[in-house]
């Protein structure tokens, strides 16, 4: 009997504490932002979206996927605004009429990570294409995202610049996000292209080190694009525009430039827009 009472009491407590909270949440004027995992994994996305929601009262649904998928969501009219990093694809996206007002507003950079033993002997080389060439010719292991993300696209550009293709037996496509891809490279002691912020957040748990950085090609530019409301009438054009304006504002600039200073004691993202607002 007591057992029975305890059981029912537990069930009711659980139900009571939970059911009154979430039914009320309704959605209509929500803005759907399709963005990339690198922005979310650093924690920058949450900070900016929280600030925007607090300021405007609008609700943002920020969906973090790869740049390839984000652009696809834009092509289908499933997102209102995109925050992506693959300039060539972005330009094509706008030319095809899916997007408007493309604005490049910030950047961070990629680094090439490798094992401390440096089997490809590339430590300290600045030219990324040369690094890739040596990795290919010495058949040392390279781990790729392999997921059509902005980082994967950048990797393909560097292979193209290098004029070689990676050795098939020494090339792994992880098919996962940045952090797991770095983890795979760490376990297998291979080389990997990663954005600096992911590297910094994983630094304490991996043995890989930066073997190359600073090349112009390793700059990673982020842009905002509004999904063209003329093409997709269901797009929340007003909400998207409000978020667009906020992300390009001085408030946003301040958040972005100060982000990461406390946790990683260095700036992660750099503002690219001329101050004119």
């Amino acid at each position, binding site marked *: 009997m007591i057992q029975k009472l305890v059981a029912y009491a537990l069930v009711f407590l659980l139900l009571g504490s939970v059911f009154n909270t*979430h039914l009320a949440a309704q*959605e209509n004027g929500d803005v759907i932002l399709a963005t990339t995992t690198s922005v979310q994994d650093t924690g920058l996305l949450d900070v900016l979206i929280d600030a925007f929601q607090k300021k405007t009262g609008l609700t943002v649904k920020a969906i973090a996927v790869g740049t390839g998928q984000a652009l696809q969501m834009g092509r289908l009219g499933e997102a209102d605004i995109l925050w992506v990093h693959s300039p060539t694809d972005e330009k094509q996206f706008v030319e095809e009429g899916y997007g408007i007002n493309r604005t490049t507003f910030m950047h961070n950079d990629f680094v090439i990570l490798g094992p401390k033993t440096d089997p490809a002997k590339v430590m300290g080389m600045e030219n990324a294409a040369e690094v890739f060439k040596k990795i290919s010719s010495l058949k040392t292991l390279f781990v790729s995202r392999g997921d059509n993300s902005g980082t994967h696209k950048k990797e393909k550009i560097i292979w193209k610049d290098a004029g070689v293709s990676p050795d098939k037996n020494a090339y792994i496509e992880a098919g996962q996000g940045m952090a797991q891809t770095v983890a795979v490279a760490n376990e297998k002691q291979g080389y990997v292209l990663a954005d600096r912020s992911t590297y910094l957040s994983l630094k304490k*748990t991996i043995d890989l080190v930066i073997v190359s950085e600073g090349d112009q090609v390793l700059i990673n530019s982020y842009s905002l694009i509004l999904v063209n409301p003329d093409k997709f009438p269901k797009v929340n054009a007003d909400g998207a525009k409000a978020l667009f304006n906020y992300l390009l504002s001085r408030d946003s600039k301040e958040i972005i430039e100060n982000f990461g200073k406390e946790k990683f004691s260095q700036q992660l993202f750099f503002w690219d827009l001329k101050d004119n607002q």
Partner: protein
Amino acid sequence: MNFILEGFRKGVILLFGLDSGVLAVLKLSLYISILATFIAVCIGVPLGSIIAIKRFPLKKIIIALINTGMGLPPVVVGLFAVLFLSRNGPLGFLQWLYTPKGMVLAQVIIATPIITGLSLAAVQSVDQRFYQQILALGATTRQSIWVLLKEIRLSVLAAVIAGFGSIISEVGAVMMVGGNIKGQTRVLTTATVLEAHMGNFDIAIALGLILLTMSFIVNLALTFIQQSKDRQK
């Protein structure tokens, strides 16, 4: 090795000093799993019982389909739920994508076959003559199913527990349908994935511990119900 121990230490601290962010995630996880289990039970138990009792053509095929459904890959459910619920999809007008409602829908689809299949097997395990006898005593179909279910409540509750377990631990479908949005659709499993991505293994371990603790409490309650009723027989 050290960072695993450190993770556990921080995990225990986080577990007992529940901050508001973790609490919101915990509440949403509970809300979605309990509501989805409840709906799946309402569909699955009667459906399983009726299929078990009634004779109709293609019965074996139907049962095979349900058994297949018990192993439905959550990411496939998630994919189709996203396609159907998306703005331009057939159910886009509901505006359920990236909301808790959409997540409940996906979870119901995952759990219903499990609960249906296990209830079906439970009802079938009862001697057919028992059912015939109830009917002979003048019970309607509905009444006789009720009597049967009471007789086998141990197995039926096991079906509920299995359904709940599959839902609370699920990550693929809720990630796709919910979008892991902070404060809106982030649940314990997707938060754990995100924290691991961010390299915050201590928080990921903490969330894992919270998930296990919560799952244990719910299962404890269900087990109490299951075992206490049995003892009165």
